[in-house]
């Protein structure tokens, strides 16, 4: 069912590992050259920058072709009658992606990825157009649940067929829209979303186990981490109160809209879930699941006070920062105490060149961006007093300090 042969993807994985090991000095240059020849495959890849640019231009072309078609042939057709044509374009886009994979042997090449993204977008637009009847949207129209459902199913299929991790994320992003067509009850919506993600997680446990250490493991790891994070976000009501749809429409939401037992149950769960995820990630030495656990733990610390209705203090971020730094120092010290800096199979030493690449990219990008983010102004206790009005930059001393 995968678009690529397992042997090819295993070869790509081996090639990537060899490059990493050679970069770290675990292999000599001669060994690397010799072994690399044995991992050849016919899949065509490109580097990340060209991949992004190819994705961009493919989107431009597809959008322009579709817009040209509708302008030329269907400019006087109603929205509802345009639906079948969107579905045809969805099929064509998907067929194009399959063609580039099977014919041109593209692998993470940008072009086929953009075509799959277009197929999902056109499918949703097609269903939306077909189901649109021009009536007032006073009641949830249950048939319209087909729009996010179709988007989720096709995204899931694309994830399975092409192995694109963000297709799984797209599938998950469609899910919160589904229950909004079934019920107006907020707790019910949260429960349904959490239940769907939980079902996905159970399925993931089952299909993942036999694939440990194969080329599929990374993809499953990302998917599992996303599901854990999805469940967490579905049950953390303080995060859901920041629903962008509500903020966009100016609808203020409050915890009062949830029944108290439900509200406090979710509070217990947001404390229970991060340690559970972290434990699973650490036991399986699963990088993505560990990351999901850490994000969930930080979100729990950040949202705990609003959950309890306690006022925030200006020094709360300092406490959070101190906790994070102290945790890192303790872990580093603990690991350093082991033989060779290793304890229970963990080490704080860098073992992969990829870490170095990510750190390099991150330091350049975040170092340039962060000064404006970290000195966001607050409401001063004394309104007469405020710092100056530097407009930009300043390494942390930007305007309205």
């Amino acid at each position, binding site marked *: 069912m995968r678009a690529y042969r397992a042997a090819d993807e295993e070869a790509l994985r081996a090639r990537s590992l060899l490059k990493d090991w050679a970069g770290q000095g675990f292999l000599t240059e001669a060994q690397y050259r010799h072994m690399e020849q044995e991992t050849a495959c016919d899949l065509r890849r490109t580097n990340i920058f060209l991949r992004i640019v*190819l994705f961009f231009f493919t989107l431009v072309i597809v959008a*322009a072709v579709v817009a040209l078609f509708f302008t030329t042939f269907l400019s006087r057709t109603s929205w509802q009658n345009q639906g079948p044509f969107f579905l045809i374009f969805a099929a064509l886009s998907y067929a194009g992606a399959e063609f580039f994979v099977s014919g041109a042997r593209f692998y993470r090449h940008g072009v086929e990825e953009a075509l799959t993204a277009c197929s999902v977008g056109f499918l949703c637009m097609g269903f939306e157009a077909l189901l649109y009847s021009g009536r007032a949207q006073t009641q949830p129209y249950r048939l319209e649940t087909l729009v996010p459902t179709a988007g989720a199913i096709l995204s899931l299929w694309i994830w399975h067929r092409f192995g694109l991790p963000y297709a799984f994320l797209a599938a998950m992003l469609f899910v919160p829209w589904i229950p909004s067509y079934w019920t107006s009850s907020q707790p019910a919506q949260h429960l349904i979303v959490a239940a769907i993600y939980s079902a996905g997680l159970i399925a993931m446990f089952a299909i993942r186990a036999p694939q440990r250490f194969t080329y599929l493991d990374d993809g499953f790891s990302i998917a599992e981490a996303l599901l854990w994070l999805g469940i967490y976000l579905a049950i953390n009501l303080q995060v859901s109160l920041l629903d962008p749809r509500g903020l966009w429409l100016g609808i203020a939401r409050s915890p009062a809209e949830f029944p108290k037992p439900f509200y406090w149950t979710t509070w217990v769960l947001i404390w229970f879930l991060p340690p559970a995820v972290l434990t699973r990630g650490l036991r399986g030495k699963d990088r993505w699941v560990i990351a999901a656990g850490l994000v969930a733990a930080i979100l729990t610390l950040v949202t705990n006070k609003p959950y309890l209705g306690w006022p925030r203090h200006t020094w709360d971020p300092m406490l959070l920062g101190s906790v994070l730094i102290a945790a890192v120092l303790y872990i580093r010290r603990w690991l350093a105490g082991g033989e060779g800096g290793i304890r229970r199979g963990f*080490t704080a030493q860098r*073992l992969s060149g990829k870490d170095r690449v990510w750190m390099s990219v991150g330091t*350049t990008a975040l170092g340039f961006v962060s000064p404006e983010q970290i000195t966001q102004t607050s409401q001063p206790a004394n309104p007469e007093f405020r710092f100056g009005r530097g407009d930009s930059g300043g*390494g942390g001393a930007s305007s309205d*300090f």
Partner: protein
Amino acid sequence: MTIFARLDQWKESGAISSEQHAYLAGLSRHEPFSIFFELNVLLYAGVLAFIAGLGWTVTTWSRQLGDVLVLAMLSLLLAASFWYCLSRAAAWSRAETPSPNLIFDYVLYFGSLVWSVELAYLENRFHILSGQWDDYLLVTAVLYLLLAYRFDNRFVLSLGLSSLAGWFGLTISQWPSRQDADYRPYAILYSLTAGAAGAILHRFGLKPHFLSTYLNIAANLLFWALLSGVFQSHGYGVWLLALLVACGASLAWGLARRQFSFVAYAAVYPYIGVSSILVRDIHGDSAVFSYFVVSGIAMLVMLILLARRFGREA
């Protein structure tokens, strides 16, 4: 064939030794498992959260805490950070120097941010620079750049370059009759200055690995500045010419050095600039969409050919 089967095969054929086989097979099974990256991310998040809280607290409670206490606290943090860095740093070298430990880079980053907080506090409470924020930014930029070169720290280098950009922007923002177009020459000047400085320092062998940071920042700012000129309704010809020259330079550099981010810049920015000019003279939706179809396909074919030639190189 899994990686374990391949390793067995390579061991049997004598391509790798038994020790290498055992170590690499262990790594493939995540034994040991490195949490280096996770610890770095947590440290970065911790430093940012702490500084955000520090700035917020100082802003909100300065009157209640009193200037002496605030300044003493900030100075103590600053002194402790820089003392730590100076006492732990290896001897200075022109080449890339690894950090002595995991937290070293973040202590320096923390100290640099505390410096900004303290200087901003001093300026706003006592007006030591008489409102000359541009001077403050310039001094800060110079300090950051010195620290970045002394301790080989890209976080602080980026802070220095952003402070320098702030100095360029702030200087012109104080002109009473400024217009948006006035910023453009300064943005271009900044880009050229940063790019040239990076290239010169690279040529002299001073932390040559910093060059990509300089060039990426300079290239993006330069392209944005030139694009803003192309978007003008009149007198855009010279900016278009400059954009195409910059595109050629970026493409040549990217291909020669296998720095494909510059190839990407050379594809996207000029496409946006040229399209904006052509589209404004095309009338009718069909003609506009046709232009995007034809030009998009042309770009796609060129890029695929380029990707084929250079394959997976990073």
